[in-house]
């Protein structure tokens, strides 16, 4: 079992009087899909923001390879190998696929853009994702929802990040596009990325997740293995089952035991 790439220890975040995250511990490992699920307002997107450097936590620490780091901006997170794709994909509709992928980080050749190198690399990234984008010179306006997601992920993959955060990648997509995105997530995992997948659609999460963390009202309400039954997840999400102690594992009466979690611990998790 590999050591975690990224760990959150006791992370809290307040927005005014709202406690969006309370004492959250999460480990992210390479070659693994960590799903974060929860009801509306459970703190999922705040967690994504903290990992991606968009929010600075009010308390607790973020450890990269066991050493504390400060992620005070998405750019800082990127230099540490953490990339994120948020719900609003932040693509420019009128630019083509290549321009979108390299927006703000264009490859230069002397004073000019190196279009050929960029196009080649864009194809390379899309091929790795086994993407079905018809042409990289098409404005992204003409692409389907799933294909736009692929372009956004390709942009995030530029610079070979180790951790990739996907916030609600299947929201507002048709079945076929959802299928494409789920295949894409499997592909990312196979390529050895650590994927943090955030969604409220438990079914989609379970299809690809290795581990599932349930957030409820800003707290970790249990950590489960990917093959946990839907009922146990739902029970944790809705608060029908309480964690044994604050921040500790939820124990369902029947059902498989959730994976180990050490409440408030700061060391590595043992297996």
């Amino acid at each position, binding site marked *: *079992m*590999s050591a975690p790439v990224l760990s959150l220890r006791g992370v809290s975040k307040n927005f005014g009087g709202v406690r969006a995250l309370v004492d959250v511990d999460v480990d992210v*490992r390479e*070659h*693994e899909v960590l799903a974060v699920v929860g009801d509306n307002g459970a703190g999922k997107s705040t967690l994504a923001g903290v990992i991606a450097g968009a929010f600075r936590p009010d308390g607790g620490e973020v450890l990269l390879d066991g050493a504390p780091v400060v992620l005070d901006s998405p750019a800082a997170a990127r230099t540490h190998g953490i990339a994120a794709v948020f719900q609003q994909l932040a693509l420019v509709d009128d630019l083509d696929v290549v321009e979108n992928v390299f927006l703000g980080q264009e490859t230069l050749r002397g004073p000019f853009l190196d279009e050929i190198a960029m196009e080649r690399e864009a194809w390379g990234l899309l091929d790795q994702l086994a993407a079905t984008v018809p042409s990289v010179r098409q404005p992204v306006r003409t692409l389907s929802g799933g294909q736009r997601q692929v372009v956004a992920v390709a942009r995030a993959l530029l610079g070979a990040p180790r951790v990739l955060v996907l916030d609600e990648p299947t929201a507002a997509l*048709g*079945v*076929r596009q*959802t*299928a*494409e995105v*789920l*295949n894409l997530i*499997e592909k990312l995992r*196979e390529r050895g990325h650590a994927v943090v997948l955030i969604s409220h659609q*438990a*079914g*989609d*999460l*379970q*299809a*690809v997740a*290795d*581990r599932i963390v349930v957030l409820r009202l800003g707290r970790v309400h249990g950590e489960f*293995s*990917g*093959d946990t*039954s*839907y009922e146990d997840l739902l029970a944790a999400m809705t608060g029908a089952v309480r964690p044994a102690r604050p921040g500790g594992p939820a124990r369902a009466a029947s059902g498989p035991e959730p994976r180990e979690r050490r409440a408030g611990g700061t060391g590595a998790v043992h*297996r």
Partner: protein
Amino acid sequence: MSAVQQRGSLTQIELAGVTGLSPATVSNIVKELTGAGVLHTSPSTRSGRRALQVTLARNLGLVAGVHFGSRSMRVALADASMRVLADQRMPLAPDHRADTGLQRAALLVAEMVASVDAAPDELLAVGVGVPAPVDVRAGSIATVGMMRGWDGVVVPEVLEAELGAPVTVDNDANLGALAETRFGAAVGHDAVAYLRVSHGVGGGLVLGGRVVHGRAGVAGEIGHVTIDENGPVCRCGNRGCLEMYVGAGVLLSMLSESRGHLTLRDVIARAQEGDPGCRRVLFDAGQHLGVAAANLCNLVDPEIVVVGGQLAEAGEALLGPLRTALEQRTVPSTAGPVQVVASELGSAAEVRGALAVALDLARVSGSLGVSA
């Protein structure tokens, strides 16, 4: 070509109007493309005059194949000549439910029909494969507890209402067996045994070109052959079934202690990289499969054993020990040991089988205009 594709169907005169070519030129082009099998023409009338209706050849109709696996679903569309027009895979949650699963399948089929520019009524029939024994006549899952949330579901009833086309259901391994016999590794062989080793373990038998279903669809369920009388209790309720030794859940849990959470694909990839633990797990799985397959071979004596499912991607790491165990336990024959090969269609076998039974259904119900 694209003019026909966009509009689906139009007469030769209309085609001339749309393309701006002279009617004579259009007539020549259509003749050439019809000869090449790209276009299809049929006589009709337009404003009282004789005209030639031009359509793409696929307008003979479409059939859809749906394969539900334990952890994924695969949907494919094909035309009447079994040319696959669209193919889509979707990962599914463990213990996925019949209602959401079937609804997603129906939506996926509808979206894919739209994506090949076809009208919904061009869908002639749908074939569905599920990883549980199926009572083919009733179209229902024939066992209890094998697929959580699917007990007693009558698949055609649900899907026919959603898609408006006749639906036929069969066990996925039976469909895989049929596909390998018709288009894959077992073409030209009679008495074909197919093992599907994936998340679960299934089997299919084809005798004289027909899939053997038995009394209520349980025929060929090699995953539930007893390996150990006192073994662990299987999801089917019996003890020590083959599936309790080679099913994905069991293989992965054997490795999770030392290697963490893996998928079946990870295990195969690691075994190919030389990971001794993963190789050992595949070796043992091959031996167990060989023992069970030997019983089958002694009863049926098939000409060929085809191994499919995701685990077959491991190749010789699995097939080698399987062959050895099989040869040790079958009656030696002057014809030599039975041929054991990996699936040729791979992960597409089951969905191809589903397309094949859908096409058969379309022929039987007469919705297909030609007899092929």
